[in-house]
């Protein structure tokens, strides 16, 4: 066996690897959705929404906020791992898991990006 044989095996396995990545990445990528389209059928799934903050509250362990877009509004919870600079009317993008509390849908945020 020489270097070239090994490089050929490498190339084939890399191509198979890239194929697997392309197929799965497309499947698991969290597509952004309108808040109004989120329903109970998305419960426990990862969701991504964008909107402006209509309510913001800081508790000892959590940030609680409501965000709104043209189609509806939803509550977002985020653990207070660090300070975030969000105020009322900030425009943010949230990625997280959809859960239900007191019959209301809410998002447990993994990532919050402040857009404006």
């Amino acid at each position, binding site marked *: 066996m020489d270097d070239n044989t090994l490089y050929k095996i490498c190339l084939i396995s890399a191509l198979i690897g890239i194929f*697997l990545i392309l197929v799965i990445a497309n499947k698991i990528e969290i597509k952004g959705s309108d808040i109004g389209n989120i329903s109970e059928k998305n419960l426990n799934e990862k969701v991504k929404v964008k909107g402006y903050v209509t309510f913001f509250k800081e508790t000892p362990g959590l940030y609680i906020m409501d965000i709104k877009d043209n189609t509806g509004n939803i509550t977002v919870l985020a653990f207070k791992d660090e300070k975030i600079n969000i105020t009322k009317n900030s425009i943010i993008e949230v990625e997280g898991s959809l859960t239900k509390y007191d019959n209301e849908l809410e998002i447990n945020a993994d990532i919050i990006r402040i857009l404006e």
Partner: protein
Amino acid sequence: MIAEIFIAILLGCIVGTFTGLTPGVHINLVSLLILTFSVFLLKFTSPLLIAIFIISMSITHTFTDFIPSCFLGAPESDNVLSALPGHRLLLEGKGYEAVFLTVVGSLLGLILTIISIPLMIPFLKFIFPIVKPYIGHFLIIIAALLIIRERKIWALILFLLSGVFGLAVFSLHMKDPLFPMLSGLFGISMLLLSYKQNTKIPPQIKSEIKIEKSELRKATFSSVVVGSIASFFPGLGPSQAAIIAIELVRKLETKGFLILVGSLNTVNMVVSLVTLYVIDKARNGSIVIMSQILEVLTKDYLILFLGVALVAGSIATVITLKTTDLFAKIMPKVNYRLLCLCIMAFVTLLAFILSGFLGLFVLLIGTSIGMIPQLKNIGKSHLMGCLLLPTILYFIL
């Protein structure tokens, strides 16, 4: 998303090359740093991308880590019978061939393990709980075979001595006990003898490497089977798997041995992902840390990670061969005695940083025990008693 995934893979390959080439800098250390700073990192990236980075780094590390162990620890030719095969080939001017064989093992091990995952999952779910109570007894048989094969009383003494040493080190509850213990037994002891005997590295030759197909088959299949089974059990790592595989596959020649050793680390890394998915337990430090960041490993994630492992393994193959080529050109020109001194100083300093004064003490004792095999001309594998004896006691007590 896809561009970000490939950037994470490339970054993982770069860091994995660094950790593999630097003695003492382990991927667990880098993974732990990532976990510590994960809150900060998650502001810019996602848990999935961090997981991909860790997997890519871990796979690359298992390819590149043989370069320093082969090129930076060669003993004098008088002791060549008891030296590890990689060092033996280095002293024959075949350092490139030694690393090439481990790369063949790593790449084929990676591909074969991924192919055998559909068989592995039912085994893990149903057969693993039945076999688990007998693993300690099985290890006793393996240890007995290891000692009997040498037919020297020193083999038994060395196995028990290193076993008791291992038990003592683990009972100290010190930080990072493995680094000073294994560096003493296998690293400093060999470097010290090389320094004393004024070892010189001959010019390295790069010729076509002939591997018999039967040898290649035996080495890769046994490493995948034994490496996979060993990865299912707590306390059994690639080192213990190597001893089991060598005992089970008799008459494995130097080339086959290097392919087998090269394969085991990579197999362990991939199977850890499978155990995490099936029984929610990872048997590998960096994969444990990755699971803490990712929280949930779904089937889609597992398939994605296997794709990442294939791409990272392919990149790592190219990096390792190119780096080895460079090492093979540079090493004969280097003052090897000075290099030995520098590496010994570096490892001693790392042992102190990682484990304090206790680490230095363990390093000293380990070095003393580690010199016995070369002085008595017996195999260094008996030193693995330091891990095997505590593992046997863990399973049977």
